[in-house]
């Protein structure tokens, strides 16, 4: 066993892992090794558990924010236990997200929450399906309830009116209901509580969404299901109502460690306070990196006030070896500018005065030298950069940089997924190697597309063109992948494949190709004379598989997808992805109470079109690790916790990073809603009357939402800046509607201008 004085740990980190008992808050700057320290602390505590405690299932409980954080923490703790401490790698601790933890608690005693032992959990998309169904149905007959919120100009233009009523408003209604239900659950508000609001029907939107919420809960009950948010409520309920169960869990988890505590929500804090019994609870986080607060109850204030509690030991990790000095200075400058000079005074409290300091000489993780560090902000006053131009600039910069820096890592970080997908197209056109950390990865999309093609045919089996597509785009792709891996593969017979594809499309009667009647041969049906024996064998094989899939088409969608995937995909990652796609489609079917193949096809299409969220399967194994020579394209949110040698930040404009100024445009304020109201914020504000006695004043929530959003985006910019180790390049663009000019064009974000001035030496702080 190694010494407890681990030479890899800095002094403040040593202090943390030697903390004996009680509550502790660790406030850490980016790159200061908070997760690394937390992993050591967890391993240290596991090492202290006696053999008997281990046998009785006592564990150190670690709670973190995302699944990928779970996997990366687990990897670290396993490594320390196995290699540094010679202990069993998987025993004595449990790492969970909040939902995972709630799931464990409820699973242990489901009956206490009124659940059967086989209750199932609706994933996000299944839950969205139900809300979408219910809202669409209600909207058709009650769309008049939205009228009071429409801008006056909407009715005057029939084309615009039609567009709003048929497309934009129904989508907004769905989004409102989704957020509303989540919000109510965050505040433990039941439909019954909402029905008790005096004059509920006077608030037309609140009334509408409350009814959807009520019907949604009934639908869940009918299915014996709970959604993610219910899980947390149920967990809290059973712990608050059953003292002896709580006591058992407190005994099972004598230490509670919480990572990313700046993103902790009201419910998470309540739950962990109960479980830790307010004793051994360590919360690690950085309030300056809180980037998940909009329309959630997550807020860095919980961590801040915890740190101020009298019996909490506060440790600050300032020193960070990640970035070169100019980059760290730029991040610190953002904090100072916001605190001292932000034109919106209410935003000056966005950050905590907690600055990044370089590590002392001799540190195991030294900062990159000033010589190898570079910061560039691509901004010239009065010179606009269009969205396309920004992407071109990045592509040409990368084409120059990559060959010169084959051993370095690079990332392009974007505020939203959509811009990332556009960038991917540009990188692809320029043959720049890349991988993505966006909502849905290329792997998922490709698999979903292949399955969609096959299921589309199975839903309409007499369509030859559809069968031909299965051959060309599903079957042959698989065959090509296999042939590629064979050492003595011959050049694939492209013209022969085209011939077959055309012949199947021409084939008038599919049945005579797949199941020829007595006396006829399928080759005659296709009327192909010269086909290589290899391709002929392959075509015969394709026929047999098509027959098999057709015969299996009656199976539930998940089973059908698994069967097809097994025939088409060889490697375990693809199969695992197919498995998850299959389950996701099945869950959506159950939620929508539809077993039709057409529905499954629609769901696959939605996955292909990036409307569904899938975790990268490979990250589940190892956690994402950037590779030299391959450009990572990621959202700024997804980049948290990662670092690259060179980082480009895109779209740092007034749309993605507004400053709560009157002329800013906000994603939450729809053009067709009157008075610039953020209808979502207003709706959620209306529920507040249940929590605190005050009168609802229209417009106030919209103002607050602007401030909250602007503050969160400032923190997001801070997170994005601190991803860079050596080189940081910041760009902006005029946005999606920039070509229209005027109020539609985005401007450079105010912090971008300020940071540019700071670099140029025209701005300084006290």
């Amino acid at each position, binding site marked *: 066993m190694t010494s407890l004085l681990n030479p890899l740990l800095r002094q403040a980190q040593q202090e943390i892992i030697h903390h004996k008992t009680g509550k502790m808050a660790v406030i850490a700057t980016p790159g200061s090794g908070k997760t690394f320290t937390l992993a050591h602390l967890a391993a240290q505590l596991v090492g202290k558990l006696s053999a008997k405690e281990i*046998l009785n299932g006592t564990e150190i409980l670690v709670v973190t924010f995302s699944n990928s954080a779970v996997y990366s923490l687990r990897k670290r703790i396993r490594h320390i236990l196995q290699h540094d401490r010679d202990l069993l790698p998987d025993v004595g601790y449990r790492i*969970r997200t909040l939902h995972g933890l709630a799931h464990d608690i409820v699973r242990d005693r489901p009956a206490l929450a009124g659940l*059967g032992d086989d209750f199932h959990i609706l994933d996000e998309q299944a839950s969205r399906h139900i809300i979408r169904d219910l809202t669409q149905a209600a909207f058709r007959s009650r769309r008049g309830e939205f009228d009071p919120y429409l801008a006056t100009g909407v009715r005057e233009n029939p084309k615009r009116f039609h567009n709003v009523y048929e497309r934009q408003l129904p989508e907004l209604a769905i989004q409102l209901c989704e957020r509303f239900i989540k919000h109510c659950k965050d505040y433990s508000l039941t439909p019954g509580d909402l029905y008790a609001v005096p004059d509920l029907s006077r608030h037309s939107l609140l009334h509408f969404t409350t009814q959807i919420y009520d019907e949604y809960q009934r639908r869940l009950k009918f*299915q014996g299901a709970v959604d993610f948010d219910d899980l947390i409520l149920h967990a809290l309920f059973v712990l608050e109502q059953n003292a002896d169960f709580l006591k058992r869990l407190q005994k099972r988890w004598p230490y509670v460690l919480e990572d990313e505590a700046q993103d902790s929500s009201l419910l998470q804090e309540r739950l962990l306070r109960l479980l830790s019994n307010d004793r051994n609870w360590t919360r690690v986080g950085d309030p300056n990196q809180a980037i998940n607060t909009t329309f959630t109850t997550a807020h860095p204030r919980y961590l801040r006030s915890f740190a101020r509690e009298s019996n909490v030991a506060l440790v600050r990790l300032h020193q960070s070896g990640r970035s070169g000095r100019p980059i760290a200075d730029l991040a610190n400058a953002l904090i100072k500018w916001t605190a001292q000079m932000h034109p919106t005074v209410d935003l000056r409290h966005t950050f905590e005065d907690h600055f990044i300091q370089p590590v002392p000489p001799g540190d195991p993780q030294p900062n990159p030298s000033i010589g190898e560090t570079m910061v560039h902000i691509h901004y010239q006053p009065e010179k606009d950069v269009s969205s396309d131009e920004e992407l071109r600039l990045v592509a040409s910069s990368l084409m120059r940089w990559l060959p010169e820096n084959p051993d370095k890592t690079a990332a392009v970080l974007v505020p939203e997924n959509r811009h990332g997908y556009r960038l991917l197209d540009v990188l692809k056109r320029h043959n720049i190697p890349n991988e993505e950390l966006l909502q849905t990865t290329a792997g998922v999309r490709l698999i979903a597309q292949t399955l969609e093609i096959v299921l589309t045919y199975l839903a309409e089996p*007499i369509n030859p063109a559809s069968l031909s597509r299965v051959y060309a785009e599903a079957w042959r792709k698989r065959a090509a992948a296999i042939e590629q891996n064979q050492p003595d593969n011959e050049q694939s017979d492209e013209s022969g494949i085209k011939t077959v594809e055309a012949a199947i499309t021409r084939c008038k009667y*599919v049945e005579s190709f*797949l199941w020829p009647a007595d006396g006829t041969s399928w080759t005659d049906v296709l009327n192909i004379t010269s086909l290589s024996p290899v391709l002929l064998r392959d075509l015969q094989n394709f026929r047999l598989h098509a027959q098999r899939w057709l015969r299996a088409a009656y199976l539930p969608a998940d*089973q059908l997808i*698994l069967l097809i995937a097994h025939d088409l995909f060889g490697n375990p990652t693809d199969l695992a992805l197919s498995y998850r796609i299959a389950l996701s489609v099945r869950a959506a079917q159950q939620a929508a109470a539809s077993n039709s193949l057409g529905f499954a096809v629609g769901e696959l299409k939605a996955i292909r079109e990036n409307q569904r969220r899938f975790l990268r399967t490979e990250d589940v194994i190892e956690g994402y690790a950037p590779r030299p020579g391959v450009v990572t394209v990621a959202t700024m949110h997804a980049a948290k916790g990662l670092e690259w040698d060179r980082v480009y930040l895109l779209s740092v404009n007034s749309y993605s990073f507004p400053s709560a100024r009157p002329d800013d445009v906000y994603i939450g304020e729809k053009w067709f809603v009157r008075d610039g109201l953020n209808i979502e914020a207003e709706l959620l504000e209306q529920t507040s009357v249940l929590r605190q006695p005050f009168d609802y004043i229209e417009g106030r929530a919209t103002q607050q939402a602007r401030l909250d959003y602007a503050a969160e985006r400032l923190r997001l910019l801070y997170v994005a800046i601190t991803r860079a180790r050596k080189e940081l390049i910041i760009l902006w663009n005029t946005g999606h509607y920039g070509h229209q000019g005027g109020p539609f064009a985005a401007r450079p974000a105010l912090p971008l201008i300020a940071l540019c001035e700071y670099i140029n030496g025209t701005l300084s702080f006290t």
Partner: protein
Amino acid sequence: MPTLPAFQRSLFLEGPAGSGKTRAVIQHLNRAIQKQGIAPERVLVLVPPSQLNIPYQQDISIPPGRKNPLIVTLSSFARRSIRRFWPLLKQVLPVDAAVQEPVFLTSDLAGYYITRFARPYLETGVFDGVHLPAYRIALQILDSINNAALAGLALDEAENRLIHAKGEQRDIYHTVIRIAHSYQNFCLKRGLLDYALQIRLLVENLLDINEFQEHFERSYDYLAADNVEEMGALAHDFIFWCMEYVHKTIIIYDTDGGFRTFLGADPAHAYLLADVCSDRAIWEKPASLSAGMLGIVEIADALLRDSPADTLPVISGRSPALHFVSTTFYPQMIDCCAAEITKLVHQKNVAPKRIAVIAPYLSDSLLFALQSRFDSVGIPAKSYRPSRPLILEPIVQAVVIFLRLCIEEAEARPQPAEVSFALQTAVEGLDPVRAALLTQVVYRNGELVGLEKLTEPVQTRLTESICQHYEQMFSWFTAHQAEIASSPPDGFISRFAEEVILQPGFAGCSDVSFRAPINNFVAAARSFTEAVYNGEDDNWTEIMRSFVRLTLDGLVSPDADLEPVEAVFIGPAHTYLTRDLRVDYQFWLDIGDDGWTERIEQPLTHPYVLRRGFPGGDMWTDDLETAAQKTRLRSLILGLLRRCHKGVFAAACDISASGYEQRGRLTFVLQQMFDRTRTSTP
């Protein structure tokens, strides 16, 4: 093989699974029959409901000209006796005079009736805090009724216990028992006897009737009660009663058993029978396990007893019989296990029936994934799922679609894809593409039409024989559809099956595997009709509609399939254990799943609280829950290990099918076990 010790009037024999108890009892009975002249028909063998009767049926030797012993479960003995003594029973029960014969309700039918009684209460909001679908609420009420019956508790006592055990849900349990009372009164009045009423009437009424006592005394000399730990207290009462009347009694108790606790088994109460036996024998070790497996059992036993870590045994000098299959993803785990099984069967010549794949739950997806992997390597495999709904059988699905065409209103008629599937399943040789084409031609506005207007090219495409068989089926429907309104559902379905589905040209004629589901479906329709038909109402269409809906809801299941086959067993642990199966190799799938450690409680019932020995008025605390779970885990692990002769493959995947990290207690125990076997592996 061990033999039974000599005993006076009664013997209580206890020992772990695999110690040879049942074989010893059979040997003893054979000797008594052969050498002491005991008449086999005067032997009563009482077994819990499962496959446990098979060794007795197969291995008791019957001398020529003699009858078989009676090998029964408590409920089947109750049904025989109730039928025989019904006129006497009727005199002491509140049964309508018009009821001539009792009707024994299957669990499906009991579910059907209890749902009717529960429905009005669901509207009142009393069950709002229970997050279960309506039918599950009803089934849990039925569970409470059955558990109370098995423990011999009055319904009011059950209510009292549930209220105190669960704390603040007085209204809910009061309602549960109100529903139970109304349901039971209704059933009794009409002579509809569900499981609870059957066993209650036997033990609480029949045993007191002189004629029955005399009949019993005249009929039996010998009683063998096997696996009494899998029976409820009421069964133990019955055994105790029998002991007064027979000359010899042998009671077998499986140590660490109790796998039917969920269904009301009460091992602790069973153990009390030891005190009323004249003799007692304890057998310590499973006799048939390999040395490697014995070592594993020993470690597991010590670990699960909470023995201090330094006293735990380690395996030395033996090759471990416990193997870990560890993967990241779920499909990989299935692939790895299938590959190991393929190796065992094809390379090591292990017979498929000597292998079992055991999972906490047997979902359709898992079953399908496994089955298709086995199919591809030519290994026969058979899944065993308790109560697999009949609607999952393709031929039943097809018949139901045809029935829906006859009885449903226009908006509820099947979709074209469903009709296409039904045609493809029913008509022999009809491929899916031609089925889609045929559907396009004959399915118009929710109705099937004839082929009179078929053009020649389409007829050629469909082939002459398909067209002919479709016409045959269509003519049958045209001629007989109206009979749905005038004949009972089972009659109509059975006629359709015999005159169409089983005829040449149709699937049931050539594919014999279709016959069992069809027969089961007809039998289910018959039971449903018998129970539901009140002798006055002749609205058969409505009865058919109810039956079809019940089937579609998955509430119609065949009787358990008890036939052992030459195939790999795929099933849940519970099924494996209650059937008391033995194999050479077990594959435990997904050991991280929480489902391995069963939860005791349900929102509306509680098998432990409704056990006879549970102190009425006590709370069901978390400590009790934890202790019960621990006992369950112990009995599960030891139960499986003692029923495996050569080796266990424990398969884990980091990420479950639904994307969760796996952390169940079974993984944890197995890791400890593995650590203790690995330490000493050279």
